[in-house]
């Protein structure tokens, strides 16, 4: 038998999966070497959504970078906003008022909820559970309504400003959040019943894409994918920023680091994020939301039209950009996919000298071959969905 097999002319099938393939979302290419359905080798080819974010930042003022960050992880833009603003504030050395910090927490958690909804929905869709997809898209729609009410756009939020926020919470936000979360929890329960205990789903995701904790750290995993390995690393707990240390929430962890754990961790994080939003809304202090530093924060319209100093400062900060002191800083927030870090270098001018982003999903995407090698083609689907590679963030 073995001799016959040797004589047979057989070769591996080399096939391009993507960039225009349903599972790769148009932003990545896998070069697969297949033996039948088994993956022998896999090369990941990223960069299809490269827009030169970091270079663009160097050409804009510090303020102008903010709308660009919306396009990093376009599923949870508010977290990017917060992350960038915190990095610049760290560079300047200012702390925003309490109310601002609470609202930033609310915004980040809403964005995280919508990101996890999208992720689980998309995985459901690609595993064939179209109904679960639409239930979560419906829930995301409701969360996006909240975000739209808050900042005026659903995806391109551009809400956070260096040293403050664009605007305060709108009236009736708390009541609407309560309604939305009520419906979201119903839909969450529906999806939970449809997927979590369904053996077809479990068979697809369990023991697929396993990443041992040691390897996960070595590859630079963060966020839900690392927590799925059983390591409770969460920037919100270990390096608390904003007012996360005053919030009561738990860090969900998995055990084996397979796709089922990633799914379960995300499902639980949705609940925890809802808890955080509710707590923050309850505790929300009153007060200003911006720092009173005309050199860093734009002035109110009233001041601009009434006070000549404000007008002059305003012209100066807008045309020249705010001028953080020279230096470098790294600041990380817990993005929906993991640690989203901004490394900024300032030379004291109005433009960033360097703006480097640590995208959480870049290491995850890099580890794709390790996770799926030896598996089937069909295993790429849940694994790639569960690492939640967002092209805008990974390719920048």
């Amino acid at each position, binding site marked *: 038998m073995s001799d016959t097999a040797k004589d047979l002319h057989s070769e591996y*099938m080399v*096939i391009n999966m993507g960039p225009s*393939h*349903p*599972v790769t979302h148009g932003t990545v290419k896998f070069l697969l070497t297949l033996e039948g*359905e088994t993956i022998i080798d896999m090369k990941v080819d990223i960069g299809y959504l490269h827009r030169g974010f970091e270079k663009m930042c160097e050409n804009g003022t510090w303020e102008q970078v903010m709308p660009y960050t919306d396009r990093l992880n376009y599923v949870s833009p508010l977290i990017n906003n917060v992350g960038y603003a915190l990095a610049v504030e760290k560079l300047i050395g200012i702390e925003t008022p309490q109310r601002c910090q609470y609202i930033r927490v609310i915004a980040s958690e809403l964005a995280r909820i919508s990101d996890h909804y999208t992720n689980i929905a998309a995985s*459901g*869709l*690609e*595993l*064939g*559970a*179209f*109904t*679960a997809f*639409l*239930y979560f898209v*419906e829930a995301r729609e409701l969360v996006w309504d909240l975000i739209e009410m808050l900042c005026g756009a659903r995806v391109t939020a551009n809400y956070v400003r260096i040293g403050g926020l664009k605007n305060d919470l709108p009236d009736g936000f708390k009541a609407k959040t309560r309604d939305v979360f009520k419906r979201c929890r119903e839909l969450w329960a529906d999806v939970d019943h*449809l*997927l979590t205990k*369904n053996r*077809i*789903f479990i*068979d*697809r995701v369990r023991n697929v894409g396993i990443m041992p904790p040691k390897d996960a750290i070595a590859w630079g995993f963060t966020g839900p994918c690392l927590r799925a390995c059983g390591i409770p690393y969460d920037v919100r707990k270990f390096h608390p920023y904003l007012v996360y240390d005053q919030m009561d929430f738990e860090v969900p962890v998995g055990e084996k680091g397979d796709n089922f754990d990633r799914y379960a961790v995300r499902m639980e994080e949705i609940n925890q994020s809802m808890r955080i939003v509710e707590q923050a809304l309850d505790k929300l202090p009153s007060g200003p939301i911006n720092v009173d530093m005309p050199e860093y924060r734009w002035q109110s319209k009233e001041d601009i039209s009434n006070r000549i100093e404000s007008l002059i400062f305003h012209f100066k900060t807008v045309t020249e950009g705010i001028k953080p002191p020279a230096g470098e800083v790294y600041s990380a927030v817990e993005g929906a996919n993991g640690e989203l870090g901004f490394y900024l270098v300032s030379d004291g001018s109005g433009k960033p000298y360097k703006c480097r982003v640590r995208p959480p999903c870049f290491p995850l995407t890099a580890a794709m071959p390790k996770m799926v090698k030896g598996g*089937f*083609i*069909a*295993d*790429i*689907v849940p694994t790639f969905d569960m690492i939640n590679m967002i092209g805008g963030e990974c390719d920048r």
Partner: protein
Amino acid sequence: MVADLIESVVKILFIFSVNIGFFSPILGWVERKQSALMQDRVGANRADVFGFTLIGLFHPIADAIKVLTKEDFVPEGADRLFHTLAPFISLTPAIIAFAVIPFGGQYVLFGHHVNLIIADLDVGILFIFAFASLASFGAVLGGWASNNNWSFLGGLRASAQMLSYEVVMGLNIIGVIMVYGTLRLSEIGAMQVNFFHWGIFLQPVGFILFFTCAIAENKRAPFDVAEAESELVAGYFTEYSGMKFVMFWMGEFLEIVTIAGLITTLFFGAWHLPFVSDRMLVDFFGFAGPDGANILAILVNIATFFAKVLFFIWLQMTIRWTLPRFRYDQVMRLGWKMFLPIALINIFITGLVLLVK
């Protein structure tokens, strides 16, 4: 002789128009609307004629116009003959299989003996299986002839899956055949007059297995690994467009109807209402004269049958839009390691019970 001919033609026209003219276009609409309602959406409703949308019922017409005017594309390097032949091979068995499914009992109409089945073969079940296995050629040829790696993988998956599930399906049917002692579908139907002799009560395990295998045989979710759009783009019909593409879909939709018809016949009392025999129907309608009573009874038969068929179509659609997809190896494992032993045990137990009786 002439009467026989007329009878046959009427029956064929009836089934043909019901299947091709009604079910195959309407199922596209049903699938859209039902999935929409299950998913809190509205569904396609924008095709309109002079502003009347008719809850989206114009969409099948719009679809038909669209596919008929689309370019018929054959990829470079494809085998033109087989590429063209594959959709026909997929579609034909689905239409033919309905010939042996009875949709009513036997009546005397105007002194002529009428049997509400197009072809009352004494090997009815085998006929269906023979043609169902032909359908797998469509998938294999389509996948192979397209000269596309994804199609190729899809074709491989389709052939393996369809062949495996045919085995299990055949074994399931053996239980039914043992219980009723015949291969003739009209006889199986006639034996289910007694409500407690319906297949579902005599062969409950057989019903579940048969239903599952039938869905797998039809390659619908959760068994749609052969076309798994997130893995293989569209599986074996990746390279098809226009009318050829639609023929694959029509084949799939018609097979849904066939499966529903077959399950109704084998397990759900065929054309019988519970506790009501054909004799009782005719007696009930006695006020309309002998022929009138028969015609009314026939109509009730047909209505009952198609009501049951519609229910099973609904059930298949609900399953399709509820469950995630299996992985390819899990489908095979399920078929060979789970269904096959259960089917064999089922046969064994059925035989034991029959023997004891």
